[in-house]
């Protein structure tokens, strides 16, 4: 049934651009835009709808034909970045998964690129309808949005080549080290929680440098400002692949979280629809195939469950 959904339809035109473009010309009539903007409107994911998806579309007819906004932080290679070959497209596992869910439910997605810290505020403000952006579903974040999980979390510990500080994970080896993290990442409180342990051992607490995208965190290690960057293992692997002479992965750690799709809190039909569609994609093996395409380990796959505020 893998053929049921065209997973390669993920050449997602950055339709934000075409929106902006019409605003641009409407407001100004200036032909500033030269290339790249000439692409057309978002193409619907051409999914040959299997029966289950047809049933879901019948159950949630409101979604059919809609264009929804997916807020992403496109700084996570493998999950979501722009396509370097055609930067008006976004590519990655999350992008393909979102398209597949949309294909199943009959909606198309456009993308809104924001900082990681404003993913959920953008959703709350109604500027986006859904967030599929490698965001970990925690109880805290569930106060801002409902989460539907789809992956287990494995973190990698990115360090300079040779691991000069001998960092072994989110543990006492971080005492006195400098960690680069993104604002709003779940690793931040975990690292901060080491302080009493470090103090007890007579060592200084870990220092955290906060940035707002992966590239800056990686640059912090390359520039010697930070000793480690602990984040999604696939991101860490990507960084090591890009700078094999300068970076390495010290170790991988498991975190007690899952990666989740965030949807607005008060829209239960939409949440149910997304969760059902995700379940279908897992059942038919589409998600596994996408994970393979983007080099994610197969055992990261997780059966959808809800993470809601208490």
């Amino acid at each position, binding site marked *: 049934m893998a053929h049921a959904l065209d997973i390669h339809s993920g050449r997602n035109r950055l339709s934000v651009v075409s929106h*902006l473009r019409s605003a*641009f010309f409407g407001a100004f009539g200036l032909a500033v835009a030269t290339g790249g903007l000439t692409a057309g409107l978002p193409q619907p994911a051409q999914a040959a709808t299997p029966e289950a998806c047809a049933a879901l579309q019948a159950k949630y007819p409101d979604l059919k034909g809609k264009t929804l906004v997916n807020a992403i932080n496109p700084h996570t290679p493998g999950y979501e970045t722009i396509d*370097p070959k055609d*930067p008006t497209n976004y590519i990655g596992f999350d992008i393909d998964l979102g398209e597949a869910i949309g294909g199943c439910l009959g909606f198309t997605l456009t993308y*809104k*690129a924001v900082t990681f810290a404003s993913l959920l505020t*953008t959703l709350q*403000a109604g*500027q986006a309808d859904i967030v599929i952006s490698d965001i970990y579903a925690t109880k805290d974040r569930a106060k801002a949005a409902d989460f539907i999980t789809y992956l287990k979390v494995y973190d990698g510990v990115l360090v300079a080549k040779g691991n000069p500080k001998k960092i072994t994970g989110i543990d006492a080896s971080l005492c006195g080290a400098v960690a680069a993290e993104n604002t709003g990442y779940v690793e931040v409180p975990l690292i901060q929680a080491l302080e009493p342990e470090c103090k007890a051992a007579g060592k200084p607490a870990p220092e955290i440098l906060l940035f707002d*995208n992966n590239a800056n965190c990686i640059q912090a290690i390359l520039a010697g400002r930070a000793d480690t960057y602990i984040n999604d293992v696939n991101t860490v692997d990507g960084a090591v692949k890009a700078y094999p002479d300068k970076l390495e992965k010290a170790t991988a750690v498991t975190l007690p979280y899952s990666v989740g799709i965030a949807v607005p809190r008060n829209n239960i039909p939409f949440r149910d629809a997304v969760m059902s569609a995700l379940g279908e994609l897992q059942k038919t093996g589409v998600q596994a195939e996408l994970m393979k395409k983007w080099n994610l380990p197969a055992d990261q796959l997780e059966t959808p469950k809800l993470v809601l505020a208490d």
Partner: protein
Amino acid sequence: MDLFLHYLGMPYLLDGVGYTLLITVLGLLGGLVMGVVLAAMQLSRFRSMAIVARAYAIVFRGTPLILQMVFCYNALPLIGIKLSAISAASLALALNEAPFIAEILRANVLGVERGQVSAGQALGMTPAAIMRRIIAPQAIRSMVPALGNEAVSALKNSSLASVVAVQELTLRSTQLASATFDFFSIFFASGLMYLVLTGAIAVIQIVVEMLLDLDRPPPREQLRRFLRALVPGRPEAVPALAGAGEGDVTPPDVADESVAERVADPLPPVVPKPASVGRDPAARAARLAGNNIAVEVKGLRKSYGAQTVLDGIDLTVRAGEVVALLGPSGSGKSTLLRCINRLEGWEDGTIRVGGQSLGTDENGRPLSPRLTAQMRASVGVGMVFQQFNLFGHLTARENIAGPLRWVQGLSRFDADRRCRDLLERIGLAHRADALPRHLSGGQQQRVAIARAVAPAPTVLLLDEPTSALDPELVGEVLEVIRRLAVEEGLAMIISTHQLRFAGDVADRIVFLSGGVIVEEGPAAQILSAPSHPLTVRFLSSMTAE
């Protein structure tokens, strides 16, 4: 290097430049519109408007732009206003720019000499006309550099729109860096793009400054100056190429000044009028006594705070009469003149000019500044100031002809004809196209007198017209006063320290001290046989100088 060039030409980033420009332009335009409103509110005579504008400035100048961006994008939807990313970012940038632009506008409006505003008022120009004809042209010239700065800073600030998902250059650069790991090539490329944009603004600023330059040189010299302005740090030396064989090149400014000083431009010879020959004071006094009352001051009292400046002045001046106000500095002469023209208010007493009370309607209620200005023009009160107060951006010709068109509504042809006639009579026809700053003090005051006389007022007030002049320039100005005003039969009140001139032209001398009239009488009598000890002391100290 290859990568750098690749990213430099990448359409994705170039489109980002388009969004950066769009937000910057929208933000600056919005900021300009709101800035004009805010500046007008702050300069308004209504205090509550100024307070509102000030409060706005405190909030929007005092909070970071990044918060304002997030607010416009994420908080406004909570109250039902959902703006697109571009609109939200442009709005935030405009909200943020407005108070800065307002301050630039306000400072440059206030920077125009107050004397020029007084001169405009005295000529009967409405506040709107003064703003449009006098203040705005000069303020706009002087605010160009500050606005250029503001444009550059807005352009750079537009990068903060990346936090609200606007696909501008900074956001696209970081996204590209995240996807490719080509951190440095990308940021050098986008840095260069920003430099080109800010460089373009600098060039626009230079061109605008040159176009607005009142001493605009011929096009070839202009191009040379433009190129010179692009290369910083080079002094404005005589160019080596042009210097060969013509070492005596004098910059136009200096040339003008030295000409002004060197060439004595004598007044045209007097054509004696029958009336001015064989003046008999007694007969003239008798004739004047039958004339209408031009100015009538009754019980005028005025104080600045606790200090009383005018303490019960009564003065009547008849049509055609020339009254000289004498008195030590601070005796209230200038204030009296400014009150007669309604440039100042007062606490008690009445002033009627041509039978009308300037600035109040028939029921004594105060009129708006606009109606007061119109009344001033219709009654016909001209004023000449100690500091000349010529409009700095206008030529001698336009200083005279402009107000005739704007206030009296003359056609350009008629205004120019009247102006030419006056310039010939004051011996400055050849300087008609000179700016005030290229005229000597005496020449400026001669133009100012011609300007005041041009609309044919019934009353002319002269506030120490020669006090700011070098001694050798006093004579020419007094001669112009004599020819344009005295011989035309205007009622005239002149405050002066020139005793001989006063004795020569004045029918009556009024001696002021401490805000009261100490002594008054026929000119000859006061000068030769003063009765009050203060007058005696003042006159003897003046002649001793």
